[in-house]
């Protein structure tokens, strides 16, 4: 009896262990799926144009370039060939409307005025040539393989991130490795200063930093101020006002959008940063007030009273005693403010008209309409815009989680 029970418990524990392992594997598989879009973004951002549209997709933005070309020149249709000297060292095989220009050292397999059938071998191109590397003013490079008489057998367009393994003047034969196509860091330069846009991302970055800085400042100052009022004072209609504040979170911004737009238009604030900054100084958002109030409530009231007895007025209690104690909550508010302002799209879209006032989000959107198929450049631009958010996230993760856990709301 006892033995039977033992094995029963052992099997249950084993079962639990197996279940736990299965869940663990599923969780990691899910995590891989979740992280793939970001990995894919970075991978694509470092690709050369001909690495983007490949099946199967290429994960590592690196490839090797070999000298490959068809050395045979075949007749496209039946007819009579004409062989002429085109220039010094270059010959031309004419077949009806087709003509093939070939270097003198190509092996011509037919005689002048010979009749050929479709598919007949007319000539074979030389299997080797000399390397010539041309560097364009924009730092992109062209690699040519040149046969006798300056005839170019093969031409390859390369970017500045293509690392040639052959030198100018080297003799190469078919199948030789010519270059390593390295991760295209130059994509980031191209995305940062796009030719098709009036402004560079320098400008967008500056604008976004200004808006985000003042947005966070306004939010921190006013939301902590108001939260202190809600957390520490008794006054008529306090609960009603608090309820009003919480319920404003449910009002869609579109309801207030049009009259607010008109208000700012009357102030002459359209196409300035003011509509994006000034409102943050008036409360800083219900969510933030709510968050900070929760934190203020965790601080013992005796601290306030002690400070009051020492002769502090309420303002002094606020900024000398309580603010330093809610520093973690302020950091949380600042981080949420950062993410909100950095990602905000609708407000800048409505209020900012001239491209010189655009934020990164607006600039990025314009960028995609201009470079819609250059996915490598679009991903480079997206990475640039996301990078500060990602950095902020890794350093401030604790604060994000605390903020959400305290309020039960996302930022």
């Amino acid at each position, binding site marked *: 009896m006892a033995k039977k029970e033992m094995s029963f418990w052992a099997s249950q524990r084993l079962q639990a262990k197996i279940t736990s392992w299965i869940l663990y594997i599923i*969780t990691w598989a899910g995590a891989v799926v979740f992280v793939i879009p970001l990995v894919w973004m970075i991978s694509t951002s470092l690709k050369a144009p001909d690495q983007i549209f490949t099946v199967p997709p290429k994960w590592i933005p690196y490839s090797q370039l070999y000298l490959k070309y068809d050395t045979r020149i075949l007749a496209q249709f039946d007819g009579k060939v004409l062989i002429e000297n085109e220039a010094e060292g270059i010959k031309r095989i004419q077949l009806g409307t087709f003509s093939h220009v070939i270097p003198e050292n190509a092996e011509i397999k037919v005689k002048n005025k010979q009749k050929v059938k479709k598919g007949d071998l007319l000539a074979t191109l030389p299997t080797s040539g000399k390397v010539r590397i041309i560097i364009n003013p924009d730092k992109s490079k062209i690699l040519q393989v040149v046969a006798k008489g300056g005839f170019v057998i093969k031409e390859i367009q390369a970017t500045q991130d293509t690392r040639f393994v052959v030198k100018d003047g080297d003799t190469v034969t078919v199948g030789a490795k010519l270059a390593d196509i390295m991760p295209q860091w130059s994509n980031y330069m191209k995305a940062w200063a796009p030719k098709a846009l009036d402004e560079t991302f320098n400008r967008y970055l500056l604008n976004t930093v200004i808006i985000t800085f003042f947005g966070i400042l306004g939010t921190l100052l006013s939301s902590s101020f108001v939260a202190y009022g809600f957390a520490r004072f008794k006054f008529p209609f306090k609960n009603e*006002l608090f309820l009003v504040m919480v319920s404003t979170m449910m009002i869609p911004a579109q309801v207030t959008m*049009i009259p607010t737009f008109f208000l700012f238009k009357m102030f002459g604030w359209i196409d300035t940063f003011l509509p994006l900054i000034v409102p943050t100084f*008036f409360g800083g958002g219900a969510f933030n007030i709510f968050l900070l109030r929760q934190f203020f409530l965790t601080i013992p009231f005796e601290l306030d009273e002690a400070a009051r007895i020492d002769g502090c007025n*309420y303002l002094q209690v606020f900024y000398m005693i309580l603010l330093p104690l809610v520093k973690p909550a302020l950091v949380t508010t600042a981080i949420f403010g950062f993410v909100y302002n950095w990602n905000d799209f609708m407000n800048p879209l409505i209020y900012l008209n001239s491209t010189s006032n655009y934020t990164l989000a607006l600039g990025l959107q314009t960028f995609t309409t201009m470079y819609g198929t250059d996915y490598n450049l679009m991903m480079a631009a997206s990475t640039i815009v996301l990078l500060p958010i990602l950095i902020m996230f890794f350093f401030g993760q604790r604060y994000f989680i605390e903020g959400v856990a305290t309020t039960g709301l996302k930022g």
Partner: protein
Amino acid sequence: MIDKPLKKSKMSMAAQEGMWGYFFLSPWILGMILFTGGPIIASFLLAFCNWDLITTPQWIGFDNFARMFTDSRFLASLYNTFYYTLFAVPLGIVGSVLVALLMNQEWKSVRILRTIYYLPSVTAGVASAIIWMWLLNPDFGLINYGLKLIGITGPQWMADENWSKPALIIMSLWGVGGNMIIYLAGLQGVPRQLYEAAEIDGAGMIQKFWNVTVPMLTPVIFFNLIMSIVASFQIFTQVYVMTGGQGGPADSTLVLVLYIYQHAFKFHNMGYASALAWVLFIIILIFTLIQFKVSGGWVHYEGELKK
């Protein structure tokens, strides 16, 4: 509360405290009047007007609302918004609760896992919409490549009016990590004794989940459900970026907020746009009220949480 006669000095103290309270609330009260209360009233009045932002508004009564019934683009936008919400919200809640349950395990790498699942929700915006445009590319996108590996020919996604909304819903699920953190906090607040008591009563894993975890989570789910619906009805940025502000193909992703935006800032029909915004507001209000009404049936409040 018993009304006790207060001494004069004490009363002035209370009054003084009240004054200070209002002093600290003043930025919010001012902002509330200027940027919320005032505009709400103005927008309500504008909903009954014809206004191009330049000339004086003309009172046209219920014309804006009557117009909606025959406005096929409005009806399409309403349909699209409901469709999106109907799928994105429940799937998002189920997804985030499931992920939170997994993240509540005692694994060594659980911190890294939490970071990975949470990360996408902070990237929400133009950049993530662009990433998804690329992922959903019909010919060279990763998603259709993945589908091909398991033998499915992927659809044209944002280029096909039947698949553009599912594409948006799939995209939204990438962000479940944000709500996951909320549920995780909720899960960690469930007292251990409850599980222990259930174990003594002989409850297995599944029974513990349905009889302890789920009821204890319902207040969080309830609150989150409301906020998710509010947010979902306001989907805008992703659609704007992925369709160049059009809501295509064939208006299949024209959502209500995008339609409001188009009328307000493209066609300058401020009156009609205000009326549309009010429709959005009322829909959200109705949904919220319904949820509060039915919440008594399924939301479980534990002792002091009930107020």
